[in-house]
C-alpha cells in the first residue's frame, strides 16, 4: 500500500513514527505466536489470542478475529509461517477497513453545509480534550477557517487558562467566563458569538467527567440543549476523546457518553510512544462510531485525521 492521494508523505511519516512502538510490539507478538508454524493449530490460536489481548484489542474483538482466521484456515491451506503471517494481517486489515467506511479525507468535508460547524468535545478526566481541541483549532485555522473556542470547562482549576494558551498558539478567539460559571451559558455565548461573527467552526471544551456520574452526564445534555436553541441541528459532532492507554473501560466510556450525548465521533489520544495501537482495532470493531482523529505525538501538528488504510499501512505492513 503506497501513499494515498490526500495523505501527504509527511502525514504518513508522522503516523509511521507515532505508531512505531505499537507496530513493533504488535507485529513481534504475532510473529512470535506463529514462529515455525505452517498450520493453524491450538497453539497458534492461543498465541494469537495473547498477542491481540495484550495489545488491548479486547476479548470480544480478539475472539472475532480468531474465529475469522480459523474459518479461513479451514478453507485454504497454508504452508509457511510467512503465508500465515500474511493471512493474519489481512484479516485484521479487513476488519478495520470494513468498519471504517465513513472515514473523511479532509477537515473541509466536515464543514459542508454546516456554518458554523459546531463540535462539542467530551471525555473523562485526563483523556486529552483540551490538547485535542488546541490542535484541532490550529488545523482549521491553517485552512483559513474562522474558529471560535468555548471554554466550558469551568470546573477544573486553570482549565480555561490552559485552553487560552492553545487559543493563542493557534491564533483563534476564545469565549470564557469565570470559574464555576454554568458551562451551558459559556457554550451558549460561544455559539452566539460564532453565529454573529459568521465563524466557520465552533469548538466547545467541556470538563472531564467520569461516565458513571449521572449528574455530570445530565450537565452535558443541558449544554447540548442550550446550543440547540441557537443552531437547532447542532452540535454537528459530539467528539468523545479517549486516552489510547485506557483498557477495556474505554468501551464503558463510549457506552455511557453515547447514551448521554449521542457521541458521533472519537478521538484516540496518546497513541505514540508505547505499544497500544491495538486498542483502535477493538474500538473500531466494538463501536459503530467512527474514529475521527488520532494523536500520534505531542507537537501541535501531530493530531491526524484517522484513515483506516493509512493506519493499517502503518501498523501492519
Amino acid at each position, binding site marked *: 500500500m503506497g501513499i494515498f492521494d490526500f495523505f501527504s508523505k509527511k502525514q504518513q511519516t508522522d503516523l509511521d513514527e507515532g505508531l512505531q512502538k505499537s507496530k513493533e510490539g504488535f507485529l513481534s507478538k504475532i510473529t512470535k505466536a506463529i514462529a515455525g508454524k505452517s498450520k493453524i493449530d491450538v497453539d497458534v490460536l492461543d498465541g494469537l489470542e*495473547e498477542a491481540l489481548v495484550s495489545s488491548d484489542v479486547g476479548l470480544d474483538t480478539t475472539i472475532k478475529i480468531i474465529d475469522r482466521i480459523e474459518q479461513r484456515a479451514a478453507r485454504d491451506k497454508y504452508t509457511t509461517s510467512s503465508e500465515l503471517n500474511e493471512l493474519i494481517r489481512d484479516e485484521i486489515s479487513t476488519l478495520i477497513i470494513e468498519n471504517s467506511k465513513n472515514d473523511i479525507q479532509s477537515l473541509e468535508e466536515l464543514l459542508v453545509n454546516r456554518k458554523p460547524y459546531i463540535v462539542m468535545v467530551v471525555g473523562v478526566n*485526563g483523556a486529552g480534550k*483540551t490538547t485535542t481541541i488546541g490542535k484541532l483549532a490550529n488545523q482549521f485555522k491553517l485552512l483559513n477557517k474562522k474558529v471560535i473556542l468555548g471554554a466550558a470547562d469551568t470546573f477544573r482549576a486553570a482549565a480555561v*487558562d490552559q485552553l487560552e494558551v492553545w487559543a493563542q498558539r493557534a491564533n483563534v478567539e476564545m469565549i470564557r467566563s469565570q470559574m464555576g460559571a454554568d458551562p451551558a451559558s459559556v457554550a451558549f455565548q460561544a455559539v452566539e458569538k460564532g453565529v454573529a461573527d459568521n465563524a466557520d467552526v465552533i469548538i466547545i471544551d467541556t470538563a472531564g467527567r467520569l461516565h*458513571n456520574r449521572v449528574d455530570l452526564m445530565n450537565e452535558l445534555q443541558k449544554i447540548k440543549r442550550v446550543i440547540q436553541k441557537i443552531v437547532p441541528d447542532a452540535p454537528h459532532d459530539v467528539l468523545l476523546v479517549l486516552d489510547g492507554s*485506557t483498557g*477495556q473501560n474505554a468501551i464503558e466510556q463510549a457506552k455511557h457518553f453515547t447514551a448521554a450525548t449521542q457521541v458521533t465521533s472519537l478521538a484516540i489520544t496518546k497513541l505514540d510512544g508505547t505499544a497500544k495501537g491495538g486498542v483502535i482495532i477493538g474500538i473500531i470493531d466494538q463501536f459503530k462510531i467512527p474514529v475521527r482523529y488520532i494523536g500520534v505525538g505531542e507537537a501541535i501538528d501531530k493530531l491526524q485525521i484517522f484513515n483506516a488504510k493509512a493506519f493499517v499501512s502503518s501498523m501492519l505492513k
Partner: protein
Amino acid sequence: MFENLQERLEGAFKTLKGQGKITEINVAETIKEIRRALVDADVNYKIAKEFTDRVKEKALGQNVLTAVSPGQLITKIMSDELTELMGGTAADFNVKGTPAVILIAGLQGSGKTTFTHKLALFLKTQKFKRPLMVACDVYRPAAIDQLMVLGEKINIPVYADKESTSPLAIALKGIEEAKANGNDVVIIDTAGRLAVDEDMMNEISLLKEKTSPTEILFVVDSMTGQDAVNTAKAFNDRLNFDGVVLTKLDGDTRGGAALTITYTVGKPIKFVSLGEKAEALDVFHPDRMAQRILGMGDIVSFVEKAQAQYDEKKAREIESKIRKNQFNFNDFLYQLNQIKKMGNMKDLLGMIPGMGKAVKDVDINNDSFKKIEAIIYSMTPKERENPDLLDGKRRARLAKGSGNSIQEVNAFIKQFDEMKKMMKSVQKMSDSGRSLKGIMGK
C-alpha cells in the same frame, strides 16, 4: 461482559456438580474463564495466566463444602491470592526529613496535579505536617496555574516560578523555600511524560538525583490497559519508585492495572484517589481492590462467615432430615441462629452478588425473626420435633403464648410446611448451598 464473575464461575462449574473435590479435569474450564475475566478487567495477559495457574494449584484437591459452592470457593481463593499479591496490608509512607521530599511522576493525564494537592491536604490534616507544593510542570499550558488555584483552595502554599523553564531549578528553589519557611514536607508535581521519551525521563532522573526524595510516587490512571506493564516497568527502571497511586477509582473500571503494576515491579500501592474533591483520597486496601478486579460483591466475607459458622456434622444431620422429611422446628431454629450469627440480615444478603441492589430499599432487620422465634419458643419440645402435632387447640395456645394472632401463627406454620417441601425439592436439584437457600427462599 463479565458483569458477574461469580455467575460465570457457577456456569463453568456445572461439571463439578455432584463431585466432592476440585480436580485438574473439572477445574480446567473454570480457570480459562477466570483468566478471560481478569484480562477483561485489564490485568496483563501474562500475569493473568501466571495468576490463574497459582489459583489452580491452590484449588486442586479442595473439599467442596455444602454451604459454599465450588464457584464461591474458587473466588475466595482468588481473592486471597490477589490480596496477597497486591501487598496484603497497607504500606508505610515516609515523611521523615527536613524537609521530606516527595516526587510525583506519571504519564500525561494520569492525575498527578490533582493528587498532589490531595496528598498535601492529607498530610496537613492527617499527619499534622506543613507541606509545600512545588509546581515543576513547565510544559503543559496552565499546569502551574492549576496547582496554584488548588493550593489556594485548600490553603496550602505553592512554590512556582512562571519565568523558569527548568524543573530542576524550580524544585531546588522550592526546597530552599520550604527550609526557610519551616515547611516539613515538599511535594514536587512534575509534568506528565511518556516512558519512551528519553529526554523527559532523563529530566526526572536528574530531579530524583538532585532532590533525594524520601518518597517517589508513580501516579497511574486506574483505567489503564495492557500497557500498564511496560509503563510501570519503564518508570521503575529509571526511578525505582517507592509506591503507586491509583487515580480515578471513582469510575467503574475494574482496575486490573493495579495487579499488573504491583506484580510487575513489586511496589506497593499507597494511595487511591477517588474523585476531584481534595478530600477524596484513601489509603489502599488490597482486599477491596481484589474484589473490585473480580467484579464481585463482598462474597468473600460471606463465604468466610459461612465457613466460620459451618458445622459439617450438624449440616449433614439436617440434610438427612430434609431427605427423610423430618425437618422440624428445632432444625429451623438452629439454622435461624446460624444466619443470625453471621451478622445483619440485610448486610448478609447484600454480600451476595446481584442481591445488593434487590435488598437495597427493602427493610430487613434481624427483628423480623423475632416473631417466628417467639412462636417456636412457645412450643413444647414435643411439638418442636413433630410439627404435625400442631392442631387448632395447640395453635391457639401458641398464639396466646407468643403474643401473636392465631392467623399469624397459622401463616407461619403454613410457610414452614411450604419451606420444607421446597427444601426437599431444592435438595434434589442441587447438592450445594442447600441449607442457606432453604431459609433464604422463604
